[in-house]
């Protein structure tokens, strides 16, 4: 298949990384594992987190001098794609992109760095807040005298994490603090997601928390970490799309109606080709973005690149998973077939960190701003 062609053009180190990640995920049970975890209550598997850590997964993008593998975001993308293929619920992008993305830029000496890389803990990142209409608003969660008060929204991995990295406000400036999940005054309101996971709406009332960093550096590191995670989430969607396409391709070759495989009808063939082309375009675009982000130092350019990746990946994953259900007919609409799991996971990953319409807007605004500057 085309899969092997593109993989073989990858750098040797990334190719090896991909092979070992794929083997690890497949051995653990592939997409069947995601279904089991969902049915068991919708969290991830801490043992799997440790296994991934042993394979070096979480530290791939952390520089070697900070205890990582120093392989860059491109390597993170490889892991994210493989996680996407088996719709793994583990906090892969969350940890590589957001939690470690913040800590390595702000406090690389902190002991939580090693624990995250080692898969001993997971930390959720609480950085957004909900405004009156329900849409994102400016931060009002306050940190003073070692205590945190206020609300945070859309926290991925809030259940299953041992603590929260919270971006709050202190004396008019930003601050990053660490609150333990079991600390006093923490209330987690779980919002069930389409894939069986949950988003946390957190409320803190006088919760003890430790300051990790403050000032403008927090804002800058947050922007970088969000860009990293956005691009990695795009890679996860690319992996998801590829696998959803492969499942569908197999199905249309075998399902027969009118005494022929449905894949023999030309309209189905053309649809399959279109989906395949979309997949390849998305894979090429997103992988290029990750490689460019590794070389680029300008934060604005990196953010714009991340938007390019997420816009493409969301459009692709939505189209592919929805057409995949259509091409399966009624079985595609059941929970018995895996394709529905991919559709649901795509809904969740699309909404996280901005969908395609959002990122196209951001991308265009960045382009205009750049044009004006020149």
């Amino acid at each position, binding site marked *: 298949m085309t899969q092997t062609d593109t993989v073989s053009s990858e750098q040797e180190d990334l190719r090896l990384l991909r092979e070992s990640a794929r083997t690890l995920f497949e051995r653990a049970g592939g997409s069947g594992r995601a279904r089991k975890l969902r049915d068991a209550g919708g969290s991830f598997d801490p043992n799997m987190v440790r296994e991934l850590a042993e394979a070096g997964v979480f530290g791939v993008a952390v520089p070697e001098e900070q205890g990582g593998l120093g392989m860059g975001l491109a390597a993170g993308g490889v892991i994210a794609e493989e996680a996407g293929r088996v719709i793994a619920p583990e906090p892969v992008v969350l940890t590589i992109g957001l939690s470690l993305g913040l800590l390595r830029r702000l406090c690389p000496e902190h002991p939580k760095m090693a624990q995250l890389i080692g898969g001993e803990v997971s930390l959720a990142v609480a950085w*957004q807040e909900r405004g009156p*209409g*329900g*849409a*994102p608003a400016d931060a009002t969660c306050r940190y003073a005298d070692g205590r945190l008060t206020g609300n945070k*929204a*859309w926290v991925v991995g809030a259940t299953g994490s041992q603590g929260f990295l919270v971006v709050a406000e202190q004396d008019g400036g930003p601050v990053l603090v660490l609150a333990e999940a079991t600390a006093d005054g923490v209330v987690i309101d779980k*919002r*069930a*997601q*389409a*894939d069986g996971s949950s*988003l946390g709406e957190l409320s803190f009332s006088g919760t003890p928390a430790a300051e990790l960093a403050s000032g403008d550096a927090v804002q800058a590191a947050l922007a970088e970490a969000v860009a990293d995670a956005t691009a990695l989430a795009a890679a996860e969607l690319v992996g998801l799309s590829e696998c959803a396409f492969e499942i569908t391709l197999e199905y249309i070759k075998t399902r*027969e*109606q*009118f*005494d022929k495989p*449905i894949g023999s*009808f030309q*309209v*189905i063939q053309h649809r399959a080709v279109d989906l395949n082309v979309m997949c390849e375009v998305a894979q090429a675009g997103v992988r290029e973005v990750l490689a460019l982000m590794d070389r680029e130092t300008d934060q604005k350019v990196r953010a714009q690149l991340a938007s390019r990746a997420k816009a493409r990946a969301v459009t692709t994953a*939505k189209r592919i998973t*929805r057409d995949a*259900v*259509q091409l399966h*007919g*009624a079985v*595609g*609409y*059941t*929970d*018995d077939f895996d394709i*529905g*799991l991919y*559709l*649901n996971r795509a*809904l*969740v*990953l*699309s*909404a*996280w960190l*901005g*969908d395609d*319409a*959002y990122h196209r*807007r951001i991308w265009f605004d960045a382009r205009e701003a750049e044009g004006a500057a020149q």
Partner: protein
Amino acid sequence: MTDWNAMSDADFRKEVRQFFEAEYPEELRHLPHRPKFAEIEHWHRKLHAKGWVAPAWPAEYGGMGLNAAKLLIFYEEQQRWGVNRGRDMGVQMVGPLIIKFGTQEQKDYWLPRILSCEDIWCQGYSEPGAGSDLANLRTRAEIDGDDFVINGQKIWTTMAHDATHIFMLVRTDPDAPKKQQGISFLLAPMEQPGVDVRTITTLSGETEFCEVFFDNARTPSENLVGELNKGWTMAKALLSFERIFIGSPSLAQNALGQLESFARGRGAFDDPVFRDRFAQAALDVEDHAALYARFADQLKRGETLGADVSMLKIWVTECFQRITELMIEAAGPDGGTIGPLQVGNVSVDVLASFYKARPTTIYGGSNEIQRNILSKAVLGLPG
């Protein structure tokens, strides 16, 4: 009996609206799932007492006898107020078929029971090997004394776990020269030892449809509707009722209304791009309604609909899907969240609408099949 058709459209609309607003239970408005009968029984009783269960049936059979224009108004008001259609397979599908092809005895016996919901119907057409290729069905019915004995399996049978009866296509002559021949239309009771119903969970976790297994199940031979081995032509006639119903603007109109209040609450209209996409969807719905009215007029003049009615279903189901996708877009970071999302004083279940829209392009003849029909029967393309 009121002659609704003699009323002005405006008066009729007012009357329907007032009834729904006054009588329809608030907690059942815009139900995100398909209800079991018990959940909506109270409402059904009111509707039945009013004589409004079957707006499209002729008055002589207990319907409202509405012409196409009035019917459209009725459905519009129903959707506008978020009135659940109830368990309407009897009213929408099997009733019209009995009216058209049934004997006087069958009409006298079944029609009142459909109206009162004493019998609740499900549709047993599809089988594992007979989806788009429905004529490939294998479920057998053989005459044994005064009964038909049924063996085989149906699948995707919506709400079979909450139905008392099934109307089904069965093979009565396996030796017929063509697949379409040798198929008959049967009515059968579900509550009997030979019928086993297993629910199937959908990808959104609902149990809406089922597998139904027949193992020497029985139904009296007078439950054959129409002639033996002539079920296919009748079922096709029913499909054309189904197609105009399924092609009606109501689902898309309702979703558009929800999208509008949700998007407004979320401030999505501040974005000119979103405004454009909303306008596009709104115009898609309006112009579809104009096309729909054209087909409805044809029915009103007593003409039968041609294959071109398929275009309604293609347009409106795909439009419905786009509208629900826009809802998800307007939901932003809440776009993967299950259950009602609150904006101001309205709450909209975005994902429920999204899930509801997905299979509309699969059931009732998939959109690919509708396109095949249009290209051959309407455009006259070869092949």
